[in-house]
């Protein structure tokens, strides 16, 4: 068999150069700068900076406020990931089983994905508005005096609801295509062996979906950690006050609103480390249990 190979050893590097250049400019360079400025206290206009060692990290990690935001971020990420994956899977399995008009269902379910996060936030904000929100009025029917923007837990509920709603279609698309890649012969064989649809799902469908689900797990966690920024920003209306926020929003508030470059750099480095550890953990421990075809 003829081996396909590049004629020059340098050619492959040339091919990946554009991609590397983009990664370098938009990821490595800013990361190095963030790490560097996290060790300094700097006046915003760049006239002078003082080396302060790890004190930016100590200040951030030692602050009760930062710790409570970190706790909320963990809960928020776990709930958004779990709920959006769960609902996405439920809807995909059900839509996959529909025979008549299935494309209509699918289109309607995917639709939401076309909404940009700030717009989703805006819609959420209207739904949960203190004075005119229909969902607030609905909650009042059950005696729940919902005060989004004022009560910590109510705002958290609204944020999670909007973030999950926004992410369900994404999971839906991937799980649906994952389901459709399961060979018909396997499904038929399973159907002959076992009558219970629920049991078939747990023993046959879910393991075969594992690669997709694993991919989605990582994507959803990064979504909850970072991409929900737009939703949060719109829902707290530019004033975080006593509302829950995530760590990314805190980086933004301190860096871009408060002009504390050193402090917010340290926070973003902490976040980078968290994501790094999380990714390594997932690939080492969870991916082992995933079987690719």
């Amino acid at each position: 068999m003829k081996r396909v190979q590049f004629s020059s050893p340098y050619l492959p590097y040339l091919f990946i150069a554009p991609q590397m250049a983009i990664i370098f400019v938009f990821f490595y360079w800013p990361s190095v700068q963030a790490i560097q400025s996290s060790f300094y206290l700097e006046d915003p206009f760049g006239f002078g900076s003082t080396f302060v060692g790890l004190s930016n990290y100590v200040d951030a990690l030692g602050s009760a406020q930062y710790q409570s935001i970190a706790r909320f971020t963990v809960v928020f990420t776990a709930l958004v990931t779990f709920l959006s994956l769960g609902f996405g899977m439920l809807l995909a399995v059900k839509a996959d089983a529909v025979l008549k008009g299935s494309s209509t269902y699918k289109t309607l379910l995917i639709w939401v994905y076309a909404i940009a996060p700030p717009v989703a936030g805006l819609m959420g904000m209207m739904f949960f508005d203190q004075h005119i929100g229909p969902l607030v009025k609905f909650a009042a029917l059950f005696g729940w005096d919902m005060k989004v923007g004022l009560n910590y837990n109510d705002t958290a509920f609204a944020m999670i609801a909007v973030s999950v709603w926004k992410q369900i279609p994404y999971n839906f698309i991937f799980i649906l295509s994952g389901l459709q890649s399961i060979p018909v012969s396997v499904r038929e064989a399973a159907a002959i062996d076992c009558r219970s649809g629920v049991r078939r799902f747990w023993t046959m469908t879910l393991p075969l979906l594992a690669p997709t689900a694993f991919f989605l797990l990582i994507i959803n966690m990064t979504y909850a950690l970072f991409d929900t920024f737009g939703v949060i920003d719109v829902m707290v209306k530019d004033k975080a006050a006593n509302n829950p926020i995530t760590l990314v929003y805190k980086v933004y508030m301190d860096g871009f609103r408060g002009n504390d470059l050193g402090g917010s750099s340290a926070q973003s480095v902490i976040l980078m480390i968290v994501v790094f550890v999380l990714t390594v953990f997932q690939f080492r421990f969870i991916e082992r249990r995933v079987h690719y075809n």
Partner: protein
Amino acid sequence: MFKPLSLAGFALAMSATASMAATNITWWHGMAGRNGEVINEVAKKFNDAQTACAITPVSKGTYEEALASGIAAFRAGEQPNILQVFDAGAATIINAPGAVIPAEDLITQAGYTFDREAFIEGVRYFYAAPDGKFVGMPFNSSAPIMYVNTEALEKVGVEAPKTWEEFEAIAPKLKEAGYLPLVQSQLTWQFTENFFSRHNIQFATNNNGYDSVVDTKINMTDPNLVMMFTKLKAWADEGYFGYYGAGWNDNQKLFEDGKAAFWIGSSGSFGGLQKTAQKPFSATFLPYWNSIQGAGTNTFIGGAALFAMSGKPEAENKCTADFFQFLTSPEVQKFYHEATGYVAITKAAYELAKSEGYYKEKPAAEVGIQQLMLKSGDWSKGYRLGFYPQIREIMEREYGRIFAGETSVEDALKTIETEANDLLARFAKTAG
């Protein structure tokens, strides 16, 4: 197909050559909506009035975003000629010497005379150096004033209160008549910063932060402030005061709909409120506690000022000075005042609007400027505190917790004081 395109190109080229002759300057601001449109109108007036300079205003989003963009641009050497910076961000830019040319220097170097006395009392100090030299040029200036639902007052048969004691006396009657007696829109500006100003109480050490950044401490545990918030919380529990979060509009809405009797807003809200309010309204001064000795002094300005960024060519600085000069002329001030509701910042502009009978027609428009012109005290000139936008965020957080019942007034104010002092110490290090 090609014709309109080439025509558009031609027009573009023409306008480019037309402005080529003039010196171009840029102005970054953080105004949106109607206030943003008015900025464009002011710029157009300037460009039409002379040919040497052409100014281009650019909206950078909110106040905070405008400041962040200006800082990022300055670090990259791409700063605009004029940057609008809001009250809470004043310390950030003024404590970075070399980032701006003091407005007063810029104007005198351009050959104009500069008269500090021409400005009204309440705007004279906030953006100035400790010696009184104007660093920023006050632009959109506002004062926290109380809007009054006149229909509610007539129904109940009471007068608008001058003091909080009077408010306490009439609040139960208003509540009985089905009104929410009081709402406000910004506890930080209206019930903290201007609380100290209105009652002539020191807000921070080092002369409210004006003299030095080193070792500046904030006075959040002042017994009078504790009393104010204890009262607010008690009023909220009684149903005399409604708190709907830190968002401005969520609170204003109650007054717009005619459900609230009094709303502490901004004098700059006047323009918008005329369109949105469902009921007739008037306005009066921000109330104060008669029980606090020396209370009743003026409030200082909120809003924002224009800063001339350094590192620009001489010719452009001259144009910036020309524009500042143009902006403070009575006619332009009067136009801006009437179009937006922000107060006129010079005495001449105020007199002009008065002589034309503007305030006879719209008495509410005069309240802000009158409040700024009340007698001033040692502590009613303003404050200069570093990382203040973050300090405000801490206040918003803790105030929210007070009204959500998660903390006590004493604990909240103590937390604010501790965290704010940490930030002030941090700021002293960055500026040092």
